[in-house]
């Protein structure tokens, strides 16, 4: 019975972590679908978002004196505005010069962007780790002996809201349908009068937005905020591959499955099997290699046919 309760508790915590993976994966899946650029810097975008939010929170706290809902809300709004500008800048810096470059160059360019962002943040914010503020404190909910932290619940809730908004945006609004058309066939979209370049810009802004929100959500969950947070973004890639790279549903499902796998292996499994403890931090990569060996298209991916 105790094991059972532990498993449920870990699953919920894992779903929260998986929601973060899903949001990161959603960010680069959007970009990949629209522009075929694989953005290895998504984790760093998240990190930048978390740092900016931390900066705003501390500034507003210094002015108001006490932590209220208003402070966190203002900081959130400030970070959102920043992410709009950031995404727009990234579109000019990364997307436009790299259109139609070979995949090797694109991968290395986004990796170099991730290195640059990590180094810049480390230089500007200083080498010390920061202690992020949490609007929920350490509050927990207890349900029949199952303990869930309020933070995890807020992450899951926000992820559901975000995904719903995105779903609505993509399928019901004019710009969303323009994005779908562009990812299907940019040339045809251009011929039909869709401003393809502006759509690309919008995609990058969206992706920066999702990254920032996931950074804000994730930061309080980690006890310390430092630049290694960017590496977490790398773990979202196995998650996306598990779900099927390039599919939005796959990104979400894969992310959640990966989060649950990681949390359970860190908790119950490590407790009962000593050898699993050795491979906690690489379990996502083992899953990745297994998926690529068995079913490279993932759970939801479409099989691609290559042309000469």
């Amino acid at each position: 019975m105790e094991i059972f309760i532990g498993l449920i508790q870990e699953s919920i915590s894992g779903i929260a972590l998986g929601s973060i993976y899903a949001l990161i994966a959603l960010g680069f899946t959007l970009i990949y679908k629209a522009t075929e650029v694989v953005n290895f810097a998504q984790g760093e975008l998240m990190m930048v978002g978390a740092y900016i939010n931390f900066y705003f929170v501390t500034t507003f706290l210094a002015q108001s004196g006490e932590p209220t809902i208003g402070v966190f809300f203002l900081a959130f709004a400030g970070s959102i505005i920043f992410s709009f500008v950031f995404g727009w800048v990234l579109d000019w810096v990364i997307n436009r010069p790299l259109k139609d470059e070979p995949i090797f160059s694109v991968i290395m360019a986004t990796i170099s962007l991730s290195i640059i962002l990590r180094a810049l943040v480390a230089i500007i914010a200083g080498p010390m780790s920061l202690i992020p503020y949490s609007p929920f404190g350490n509050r927990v909910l207890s349900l029949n002996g199952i303990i869930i932290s309020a933070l995890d619940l807020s992450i899951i809730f926000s992820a559901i809201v975000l995904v719903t908004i995105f779903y609505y945006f993509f399928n019901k609004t004019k710009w969303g349908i323009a994005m779908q058309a562009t990812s299907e066939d940019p040339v045809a979209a251009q011929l039909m009068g869709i401003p393809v370049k502006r759509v690309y810009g919008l995609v990058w802004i969206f992706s920066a937005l999702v990254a920032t929100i996931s950074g804000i959500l994730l930061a309080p969950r980690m006890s310390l905020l430092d630049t290694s947070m960017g590496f977490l973004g790398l773990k979202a890639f196995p998650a996306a591959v598990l779900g099927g790279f390039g599919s939005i549903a796959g990104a979400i499902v894969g992310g959640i499955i990966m989060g649950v796998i990681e949390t359970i292996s860190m908790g119950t499994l490590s407790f009962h099997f000593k050898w699993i403890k050795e491979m906690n931090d690489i379990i996502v990569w083992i899953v990745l290699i297994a998926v690529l060996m068995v079913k490279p298209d993932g759970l939801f991916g479409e099989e691609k046919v290559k042309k000469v």
Partner: protein
Amino acid sequence: MKGRYEDENLSWIPLLIIGIFLIPFMLKEITFSYKYYLFVLNMAGVYIILTVGLDLLSGYTGLISLGHSSFLAIGAYTSAILVDQIGVPFILSLVISPLVVGVFGFLIGFPALRITGMYLGLTTMGFGFIVKRLIIALRVWTQGAGGLEVSPPMIFGYTFNSDWDNYFLIFTFAIIAVIVGRRIGKSKIGRAFMAIRDSEQAAEATGVHLAKYKMLAFFISGLFAGFAGALFAHTSHFISTDHFDILLSIYFIIMILVGGVSSIYGAVLGTLFIVLLDFLFVPELKDLIHRVLNIEGGDIQSLLFGLIMFLFIIFQPTGLYGMWIKIKIYWKLFPFNPKKRLI
């Protein structure tokens, strides 16, 4: 002297080799701290052996590897364990360790038969993480994260103790590696690699055995990396998992990109450029930033390398070697240069 290929002028190569072996003597004459420069050059020499192999894999065959530092790690640890704990002579370990790494390359080549591009980058990156973890887990032999002391290289009773000795050892092998790499690049195998890079379907249609040549690319690249690893372990006397992290793999890719992809000379140029920049320019820059702006430029090195790679990809995709070719053509045609850019 003309080579096997008509366009290749080889007369400067013996001169260059003599020049390389004269460098330590010249450094000793010029500066007082020549030992530090020799240490830096030794580092570059080891990395050259690896990047030549990486260029054959990533540049010629177009298979991205973001886990090459783990190949280096396997080579280094294999050689250290073979020589120090089993008692195999160093010269024999120089043969066995590359073969071991080649087999690992073979293993990682299996998934590469089905996947390319970004997926392969991820797989090799994951392989890097797994190998690092594995080294820590096998602490009976590797002493875990604490690191391992390694004996200096010994060939036929002669022990290479100082950076001075190591320089001649490393650069002898580096020169051999470059020559072998170039021969492979120009041979039937190299042409098959390039055909695979340009179009897998077209290559297969013209009779290139895809599976065979992809595995071969990983195997050859593993051989080079294993060789570099064995030399690295014994000349630096101490190895730990911190030496072989994911950032190093990315630096290797930066080296071949900056030098110019799919040219062996490019890999050499890029490696020299990045390593010299890293050890000679970055400390000065850190000092300058500390004095002028009064902040700790802790991560200035990765910032600089990231920027360099980014600018090279966008403005000079052919790298340093491409630049050199451009200049050469410019002077060849002078003063009748066409107005538009040639390459």
